[in-house]
């Protein structure tokens, strides 16, 4: 299948970027990233600079393959990362526009690669459990209500890809931050530090320059792990409880 690509090319953080058109011959069985690999081989052979894009596991769990495909983070499929998208979802002759995450909190490094260390700093502000909670058998020794552990696990599935920020009309990092807060607050191991955690993480999220949440719900639609915005309501309750007590 012949595809027409328009890819955001930007040489460096402070350079002007633009969409550049490429032609690529892809196979419907390829993944989206393999299709870009093919393009990059073409570019290298032609002596041009290949398209920089982040990728690692290519199975939807590392959260690296961040790209906005035809205006949608991770492409058209629900509950999948860009690496899990296959070319059979496109037709011969299609034009595909590929852009990086756009947010002040995620400055562009090059082409489709953005700096997501803002998320690391939000985690470092409180998204952890300070004491050693032991290894797997010790965890099993602490009884946890089934519904709670399941809900905590649903929030824990966040892979920190940043699609929530990319999709949000306000470039808010609320769904990411809220998922981490909810995941840890629901478990006994995370309970001890829940008050300081929520205040510090919300504070850090603001410092990183992400916008406010306006409850559009655009984040839950693009989340490759389909984490609902109930997490954000949880974060708000958690925050007020921490401040008022």
């Amino acid at each position, binding site marked *: 299948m012949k595809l027409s690509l*328009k890819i*955001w090319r930007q040489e460096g953080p402070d350079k002007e970027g633009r*969409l550049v058109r490429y032609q690529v011959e892809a196979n419907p069985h390829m993944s989206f990233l393999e299709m870009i690999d093919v393009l990059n081989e073409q570019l290298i052979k032609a002596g041009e600079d290949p398209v920089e894009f982040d990728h690692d596991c290519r199975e939807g769990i590392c959260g690296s393959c961040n790209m*906005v*495909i*035809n*205006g*949608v983070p991770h492409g*058209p*499929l*629900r509950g999948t990362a860009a690496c899990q998208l296959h070319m059979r979802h496109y037709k011969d002759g299609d034009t595909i*526009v590929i*852009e990086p995450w*756009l*947010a*002040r*909190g995620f400055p562009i490094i090059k082409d489709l690669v953005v700096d997501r260390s803002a998320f690391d700093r939000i985690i470092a502000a409180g998204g952890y459990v300070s004491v050693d909670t032991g290894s797997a058998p010790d965890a099993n020794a602490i009884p946890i209500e089934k519904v709670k552990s399941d809900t905590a696990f649903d929030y824990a599935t966040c892979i920190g890809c940043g699609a929530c920020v990319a999709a949000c*009309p*306000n*470039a*808010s990092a*609320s769904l990411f931050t809220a998922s981490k807060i909810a995941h840890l607050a629901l478990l006994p191991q995370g309970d001890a530090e829940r008050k300081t955690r929520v*205040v510090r993480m*919300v*504070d850090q*999220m*603001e410092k990183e*320059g*992400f*916008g*406010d*949440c*306006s*409850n*559009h*719900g*655009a984040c*839950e*639609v*693009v989340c490759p792990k389909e984490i*609902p*915005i*109930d997490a*954000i*309501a*949880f*974060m*708000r*309750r958690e*925050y*007020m409880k921490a*401040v*008022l007590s």
Partner: protein
Amino acid sequence: MESQSKLIVALTSQVGRKYLTGITGVLLVIFIIGHLLGNLQLLDSDPERFNAYAKSLHDFGLLLYIIEIALAGVILLHAFIGIAIFMRKLKARKHGYKVSGQKQGGNGKQSLASRSMIYTGIVLLIFLVVHIAQFRFGPAKETVINNEPAMDLHALVMETFSNIWWVIFYVGVMVLIGFHLRHGIWSALQSLGAMKPRWSKAIHGAALIIGLLLAIGFLVLPIIIYVRQV
């Protein structure tokens, strides 16, 4: 003292701003429900019914002024935070995407109503200035109710809505109120963290119905008044 400053820091935080927007929003929804119920008395064939209602409010005296000032404070706080959130949004993403698209199965709770809150909000703020100047400080004639002097607000309303342009203006703004409430009611409840996951869909749907009912309630009034006078 320290707990006071902690509360201020908290209320100006990203979560706090949403709480304040939500609380002021809920108060305003309660106010306009009361306002609509009061206004429906305009439909009574006896003008005295509405004038007596207006007089009973004015008889609150000092308390009425306190309520009015509090209400103005709520509106200004709501508008101020809304504008501040919009300004931060402009900074949070300087340039938008070149193309826009949709996930399979649609864009969820995002809608024209949610994307236009700042615009509908600003129109409503301007509308309020016109509306208050027109009816709160407007040129109402004197009348008498129960042997006491009162303002003939009923006549002022009838006169205003005998003009088709005022009718069109009010109906237009009420449609925008419907849009603002459609996202606002749901958003306020989500902001206040009042959501149980399984209620999320129901509350999103209920916001549509309440928004629609309030908008229709308000916009049929000028239409009915106009038609009755033609």
